[in-house]
């Protein structure tokens, strides 16, 4: 008898579990980890949705493309503009239906599918104690003595590396290859991803590292260290944005819509700055956390639409490869 009651209890418990709808969100590794924004996003959204938000980490687009419309993902969180074209062509995503008027991006954004939640810009980060007078412009960096050492990322294996190549392309156009050639002797090394580069920089191996305008905010807020700064160039900086999208085959369309709307809500936007160390996409500057308000940001912002970028990308990478292979 006791056993039956126990079994019945188990059954009803699992039935209750089954009734809680699950929203499955594919997100990058750094988002999902305990130091990323994942845990806070989960907590905040579950408080308002009466659902179970489950993050699944890993390669976003390759996995989604492999799975096709049999994917269990409802939302994909953390795409970059260099994959949006491929993602759009796959037909796996649905319009987000979110009002874009609250966006505070430095560029116009009217995409119906990919919704930005935070952004930054490419920038070379330096240590003021080691490099009191950094190059004041991109031109000055190219002309700097060759003992100024920088670390960058490979455009073929990293998102920030690709953004660097597009940045160079946007600033120098047809002369990009020559510019890379001038920069080449100053490039200490090229790493696979951002983490390796940044590790080399914080270990004091290089004077400057290719990173984001928002990197100093981490050091200010988390470490109280104001010695890491972004060198701001008048030629402009390349815009990098992170995006979320709703998967068309979702079995939780209402929840997915609710999540997409939540991304531009003020609580999420206030949290994401320090959660993901990036600038909120829909929050006026005066509401940013203090460390972010201190950031030096570029006045001129450069950006290629996904079609422009797709047309330029292969040649820009080749120019980079040729110049650095000499």
């Amino acid at each position, binding site marked *: 008898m006791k056993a039956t009651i126990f079994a019945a209890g188990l059954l009803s418990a699992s039935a209750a579990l089954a009734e809680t709808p699950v929203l499955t969100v594919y997100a990058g590794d*750094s988002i999902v980890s305990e130091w990323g924004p994942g845990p806070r996003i989960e907590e905040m959204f579950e408080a308002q949705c009466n659902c179970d938000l489950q993050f699944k980490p890993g390669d976003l687009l390759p996995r989604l493309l*492999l799975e096709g419309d049999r994917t*269990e993902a409802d939302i994909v969180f953390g795409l970059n503009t260099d994959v949006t074209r491929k993602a759009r062509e796959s037909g796996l995503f649905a319009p987000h239906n979110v009002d874009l008027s609250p966006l505070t991006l430095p560029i116009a954004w009217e995409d119906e599918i990919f919704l930005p939640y935070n952004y930054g810009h490419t920038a070379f980060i330096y240590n003021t104690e080691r490099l009191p007078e950094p190059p004041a412009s991109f031109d000055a960096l190219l002309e700097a003595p060759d003992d100024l050492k920088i670390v960058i990322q490979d455009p073929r294996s990293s998102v920030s590396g690709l953004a660097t190549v597009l940045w160079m392309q946007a600033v120098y156009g047809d002369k990009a290859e020559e510019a890379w050639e001038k920069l080449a002797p100053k490039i200490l*090394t090229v*790493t696979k991803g951002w983490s*390796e580069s*940044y*590790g*080399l920089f914080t270990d004091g*191996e290089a004077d400057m590292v290719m990173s984001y305008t928002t990197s100093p905010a981490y050091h200010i807020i988390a470490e109280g260290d104001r010695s890491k700064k972004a060198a701001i160039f008048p030629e402009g900086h390349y815009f990098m944005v992170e995006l979320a999208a709703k998967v068309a085959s979702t079995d939780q369309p209402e929840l997915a819509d609710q999540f997409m709307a939540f991304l531009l809500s003020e609580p999420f936007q206030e949290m994401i700055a320090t959660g993901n160390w990036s600038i909120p996409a829909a929050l006026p500057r005066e509401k940013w956390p203090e460390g972010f308000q201190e950031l030096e940001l570029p006045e001129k912002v450069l950006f290629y639409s996904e079609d422009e970028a797709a047309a330029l990308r292969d040649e820009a990478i080749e120019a980079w490869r040729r110049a650095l292979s000499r």
Partner: protein
Amino acid sequence: MAPRIVALTAAGQGVALIVAPRVVALIAALAVAGLTLGPVGAVLLRAGGWGALGPGDGQALRFTLVQALLSAGVSVALAMPVARGLARRRFPGRGALVALMGAPFILPVIVAVLGLIAVFGQNGLVNGALRALGLPEMTIYGIHGVVLAHVFFNLPLAVRLLLQGWLAIPAERFRLAASLGLTRGALFRVLELPMLLRIAPGAFAVIFVICLSSFAVALTLGGGPKATTVELAIYQAVRFDFDLGRAALLSVIQLALALSAGLVALKLGAGSGFGAGLDRGVTRWDGQGVWARSADALWIVLAALFLLAPLLMVGLRGLTGLVLLGPGTWIAAGHSVSVALVSTALCILWALPLATRRGELLGLAGIALSPLVLGTGLFLIVRPFANPFALALPVTALVNALVSLPFALRILRPEAEAVRADYRRLAQALGLTPLAWLRLVLLPRLRRPLGFAAGLTAALSMGDLGVIALFADPDRATLPLQVYRLMGSYQMAAAAGAALLLLILSFGAFWMFDRGGRVNADT
């Protein structure tokens, strides 16, 4: 009648001794082939055909070959004097040194690279010393840096493989050489050279193959796109271009290169062993002169400095970070340990029946296949039947076992063959059953290499990131993944701490198994 039955039974057991192991070996071989060719096939099927090579792929292929040849050549060449020194000398702490020197091999790439840079980088110890002496500074970035790093990773493996070869020469041969009054040159020619010719090609091949698929090391220390390897092109094809046809083509080229290297090594290393001895402790009458002693000491000290200094830097960098580790990292450490134990058991069971020449060649496929293609292929195969997220840890354990297999085979094969050559006739004469053969002859005689192989597998599985990217589970991260996640979130100090924890665990696992294999062994 009775004697005939006995004779028949003995003959039957003789047949069983030959047939049963063959069946097991066949199953093991099919498993390797299936696990490597299956994923490539799945990727190819999905891609709908081979892709075309991209610009720069030719250059990448050339660079990949050159750096792998150099790295393997230098590793094996340097390993010879070091292993000889260790084989000839007895000194306090020798066992610990031999074990410790194995540690670089088992470090996760990113950690080892940062350790190397702390010693040889712009701001490293070596340049600090050069500056203090007013000498020009060195740079680690360039093809020499790539080779340096690969030697750092693989010299310990080469030393251990050769050392094992030296120790497998029965003591009686050295006795005979001494009583015949062989000169140093003659002793080298008669005893040491044949052993080197038998062991070195295999060591070269396995290091060559592992360097073929080098990626982050080559890129970071190579200094830029000149140092592009095929593995980077595969990465780009899978993760950025989603060009699976090109990825499949590149990985098959890589596989073909590796298997050719394996074939050549097999041809070159075909000599036979020294026959059985009485397992006496080896006493060396040669190499007792001052010159020989100082040369041995110098080689040992240099190798120890080269291998241990970067490890020490990893330790120092990590000490402060150790206190920053959150519960997530400790849970990840737990996952890594359990994955490593399962991989080790699996790998050893797999390696025993494959410890033959052909088996070793086949086993090379495990490290020759690009981990990214392997992961993608497994994902495509598993996906229709099960949720890949739920299988994250089992798949990792399986792949780790597959990837460690070539190392286990390299360690086990020469001695397993020697045991078969030396004791098979006796076993057949005694009519040993396959199980009795395993229990009474093979396993006890393979104890030392088995311990070494198990230690290496456990450590490799602890440190290897493998294919987990497509099979990641948020609640079941392993420690190497955790190191990358920490670095990706600006937590450089905590990442260094997690890396140190990983080093300690990997080394602990390695030491435990290796030590277990060397109990009562005079080495």
